[in-house]
């Protein structure tokens, strides 16, 4: 009557005490660690909203110029100081330049500075952290260096460096590239310390694990050891500091531009646009809103992404 080889209609299910029930057939497959992280990340509503908003922002400044093809430098004096209209959704400035177009091109610079400075600071921080954690001889020296950098008054020094080296770099690389290189370099070189400290701590802990011993016992050279075994295991703190690094770089760049020591007015960033708008605060107070909101919302979204990533990458929380 019953067929002895009837397959069960539903796949066997493992009931987990924590988390949803999983089909047993799938659990045999090794799950990708990053898929797991993504599953956890998706549960953090703020982080998902932040990621969505940041992607939207990147898309807007990336594809924006193709859709909104008014030249941000085009001066149209008769249309100056206009309010929002169909031709100029965000209005125009005191020279009749379209604010939306300027916001898009300013956003490109701001986001580019944020990403590049973050990459530089991450590279320096990871390099110094891994070297200090892995090679005992370098540890003392590199950590003293980190402490010294932490004791430097950063904002005053940034201002001084930019003021002093601005003209030299401008004449060497042209006015726009020169200031871009300078700002990315100074922000990157003054914000690597936290990353270095966290990475060093993690490397010190990982160095004592059995798999490192195993790798060493089969004669893995140091270089391979770091790239194959150490670096993949310190990815999570690096990723979290990457998000915080973007937020920090965007705020620092805007602050420098706001103090009048960043990008020039004809090559604007969000900070510079905000600085220029404050001159017209009495007459056109709405003009400071666009760049201010753009800075605040991108930093807020990046901070939320960092928050969600930190939760998702923390194995103690991940199962919950």
């Amino acid at each position: 009557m019953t067929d002895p080889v009837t397959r069960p209609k539903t796949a066997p299910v493992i009931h987990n005490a924590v988390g949803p029930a999983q089909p047993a057939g799938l659990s045999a497959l090794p799950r990708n660690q990053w898929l797991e992280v993504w599953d956890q990340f998706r549960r953090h509503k703020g982080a998902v909203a932040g990621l969505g908003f940041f992607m939207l922002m990147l898309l807007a400044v990336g594809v924006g110029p193709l859709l909104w093809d008014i030249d941000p430098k085009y001066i149209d004096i008769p249309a100056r100081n206009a309010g929002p209209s169909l031709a100029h959704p965000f209005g125009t400035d005191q020279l009749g330049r379209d604010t939306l177009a300027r916001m898009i091109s300013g956003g490109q610079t701001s986001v580019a500075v944020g990403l590049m400075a973050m990459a530089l600071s991450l590279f320096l921080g990871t390099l110094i952290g891994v070297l200090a954690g892995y090679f005992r001889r370098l540890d003392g020296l590199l950590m003293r260096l980190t402490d010294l950098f932490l004791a430097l008054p950063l904002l005053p020094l940034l201002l001084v460096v930019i003021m002093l080296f601005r003209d030299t770099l401008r004449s060497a690389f042209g006015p726009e590239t020169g200031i871009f290189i300078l700002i990315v370099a100074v922000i990157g070189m003054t914000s690597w310390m936290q990353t270095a400290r966290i990475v060093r701590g993690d490397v010190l802990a990982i160095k004592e694990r059995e798999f490192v011993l195993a790798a060493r016992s089969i004669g893995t050279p140091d270089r391979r050891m770091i790239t194959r075994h150490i670096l993949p295991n310190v990815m999570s703190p690096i990723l979290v500091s990457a998000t915080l690094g973007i937020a920090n770089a965007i705020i620092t760049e805007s602050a420098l531009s706001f103090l009048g020591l960043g990008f020039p007015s004809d090559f604007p960033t969000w900070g510079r646009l905000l600085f220029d708008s404050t001159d017209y605060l009495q007459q056109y107070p709405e003009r400071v809103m666009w760049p201010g909101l753009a800075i605040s919302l991108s930093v807020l979204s990046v901070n939320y992404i960092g928050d969600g990533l930190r939760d998702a990458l923390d194995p103690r929380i991940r199962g919950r």
Partner: protein
Amino acid sequence: MLIFTFRRLLISVPTLLFIALVIFLLLDLSPGDPMAQVPLTVPPEVKEKMRLALGLGEPGYIRFAKWLIQFFWIEPLNTVDHIFGTGFAEGKLRVISWQTRSPVMDIIYQRLPQTLWVVGLSYVVGVLIALPIGIYSAYRQYSVFDQAGTFVSMVGYSVPPFFSGVLLIVIFSVKLGWLPSIYDTTHVVNDWASFKVQLKQMIMPVMVLALQTTAQISRFMRASMLDNLNQDYVRTARAKGMSESVVVMVHVLRNSMIPVVTVIAMGVPGIFGGAIITEQVFKVNGIGQLLITSIQANDLPMVQTLTFIFAVLIVVFNLIADILYGVLDPRIRYD
């Protein structure tokens, strides 16, 4: 503890010297020319004499040593003279500003009260707001208040002071006209009416700076309270039948304050850095604004002294934080 304090003090001396050297070299090696503002009609030999008059003739290490002596020996002597009316520093050369030709420290002493009032008050206000918020959010974790607090502190973290300040000016000065947008330093408080004016002009800069402090410290307070609320000694205290207010406000709070106090101490130099921007927004002529104007005027002695003072603040408050940590937490033994 005393030995540790002494050792930390000794370590901070080379740190400070190194920072002074870094700042000096940065300014010295920079391609900027202090004579750039002098008109082109001035002949080169006169320019050379002006250069010598500014003390630029000697090699770098002599100028660095001179600056160190002036900053660490002659300026304190001058302060002593000023307070006690003595004459120790008479005839000794002080650090002179290139911009005004008056001693750098005199200008700094003129500007310092404004900064200290705004920065100091904002820090106190920020901490006073942050502590209750942190305590209550931790006590009612995941409640509506906690969620709102988390969101507000995230916003306070993310909105830069140059936007929140401008936003406040737009709302309260431009639209409503309640508060002045510019901080008037010459205002003298001598009666109730003038005190109210002073209060009005201080509200906005203080609140902008306090928002950032609040955001950071309330998060720390919450995390620290959460760590302690699940400890065994809390259960013991409750089991003994102590009232909830005693458990939270005496037992838990005292233990949670240990890391928070050090964070508060370490945040002081950062708030001075933030004051540079806030002073620019509200046109307060404190030391932050002095730094900006002297950077723009290429006034190197002033820039060097001010930047170094910021560095001293960082080193001193880190030292205070370390010592406080040892004093407050008897489990921490440095030696």
